[in-house]
């Protein structure tokens, strides 16, 4: 079943007369993971923000994005907020700025549950504790309050990002939009986040839009792939197909760059494997 259908989405900056995203069309089915890759400034984030009505300033959005029969573009802000609370979650790169430094992690997680799910105070706190456990920040026997009672500056960027992931997933959205969630994290935290997303896809059948310039992670997660450049879609198709047999020059260039960079590492690891 088709969950989200985007057609001819265009974002223009009227002030400067620039087009940030042009004629973007894609669809997302139940249970599917769509990867979007491209360099910075290719319009990946802008597209997703436009879907959720999170663009600010004088950006004109045209086109259509249908979510379960409802049109997201030009939707009333109130309804859009409900959609964001109930159905579509967004996860961002910058976890440091996403948390308010004045409140503890637990308070902020619980507040979100109370707002979005109408939970009672105690119930929300339990849910927050479950979040911390689910992303492995508190071992099963450990008291999650130890993490919940901390302020954002007391946790590392990776831990905050994991909290964000946990929260986004605990809301059990139908669609998760993850905008470069693993960039700037070390591989352990990166892996934890990616595995969490995979697990939840298995458990709840949530659909994911995963934006990243890290091809390795996208390849690991995505079923289908969208390659963007300068606001346009360059190539799209089954992820494995695009990675194995890229049709476009630009896609090949992206893949080659990444291959070259990780080449030494792959060699070191596999050679070592031969020694063992």
């Amino acid at each position, binding site marked *: 079943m088709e969950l989200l259908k985007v057609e001819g989405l265009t974002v223009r900056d009227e002030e400067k007369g620039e087009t940030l995203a042009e004629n973007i069309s894609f669809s997302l089915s139940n249970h599917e993971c769509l990867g979007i890759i491209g360099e910075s400034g290719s319009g990946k984030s802008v597209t997703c923000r436009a879907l959720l009505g999170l663009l600010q300033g004088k950006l004109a959005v045209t086109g259509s994005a249908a979510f379960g029969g409802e049109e997201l573009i030009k939707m009333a802000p109130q309804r859009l907020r409900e959609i964001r609370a109930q159905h579509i979650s967004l996860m961002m790169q910058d976890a440091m700025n996403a948390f308010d430094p004045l409140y503890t992690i637990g308070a902020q997680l619980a507040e979100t549950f109370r707002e979005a799910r109408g939970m009672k105070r105690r119930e929300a706190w339990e849910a927050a504790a479950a979040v911390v456990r689910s992303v492995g920040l508190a071992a099963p026997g450990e008291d999650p309050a130890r993490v919940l009672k901390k302020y954002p500056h007391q946790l590392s960027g990776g831990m905050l990002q994991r909290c964000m992931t946990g929260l986004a997933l605990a809301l059990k959205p139908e669609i998760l939009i993850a905008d470069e969630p693993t960039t700037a994290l070390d591989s352990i935290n990166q892996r*934890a986040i990616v595995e969490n997303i995979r697990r939840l896809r298995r458990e709840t059948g949530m659909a994911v839009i995963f934006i990243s310039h*890290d*091809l390795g992670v996208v390849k690991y997660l995505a079923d289908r792939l969208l390659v963007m450049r300068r606001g346009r879609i360059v190539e799209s198709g089954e992820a494995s197909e695009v990675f194995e047999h890229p049709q476009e020059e630009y896609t090949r260039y992206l893949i080659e760059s990444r291959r070259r960079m990780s080449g030494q590492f792959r060699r070191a690891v596999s050679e070592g494997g031969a020694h063992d």
Partner: protein
Amino acid sequence: MIEIRNVKKSYRGSWLSGKAGKEVLRGVSLTIPEGGCTGLVGGSGSGKSTLARLLLGLERPDAGEILIEGVELRKWRKEHPGKMSVVFQDYTASVNPRYTVEQILLEAVTAQTGTGGRGRKDENTDLTEQARSLLRDVNLPEHLLGHYPHELSGGQLQRVCIARAVAANPKILVLDEAISSLDVTVQEQVLELLAGLRKKYSMTYLFIAHDLQAVASICGDIYFLHQGVIEEHCACRDLSRVRSSYARSLLDSVIIF
């Protein structure tokens, strides 16, 4: 050759305000061979940036010593002014927004001679020529000389930062997450560029990053720093044979493309 011996650094807490102190480096020792490229890998909060600041002389260690060519760091820096340089992660904060690319590139050079850019006319044309050749070194077009930082893209700006870092012909270059904020395609180009520059100017690199794949692609040997302690040191080609649990889990969780 850089030797860091049992260096400790902690940030003082305050009894009055009830702030707890924090021990960032708990006895770190490492050796960086001359002309080599040594990687330092660690997650956020592992103390790798603190170590960089100590090596750059921006802060002083609480205990232990840092020797360069057998000479104590501060003394070495006095004897060899400008022979150490750095590229930071955050390229937008790394350049003064009021200056043009040319002024940024030549800062290290003019500051050494003390002319502050007010030299004689023929000197100035020499300097402009030097700025041009620096831009050529990092594959940027020469017309960028008169531009201001905000007119450049992230990749271009980071290349300007690299060019500026090598301008005064340093012997030691510290790269503190220098490529982490860049796109993968640009990362690859910058890594290649860095490798080329190292040969051209025979520099010693300390390459600090959290991305193991990037480190492996440029470094000869790698140190793993975890919570202020060096967990392991290995040559890059022996990467698969690391023993310590931290290095192991870091390695195992890499999602290879």
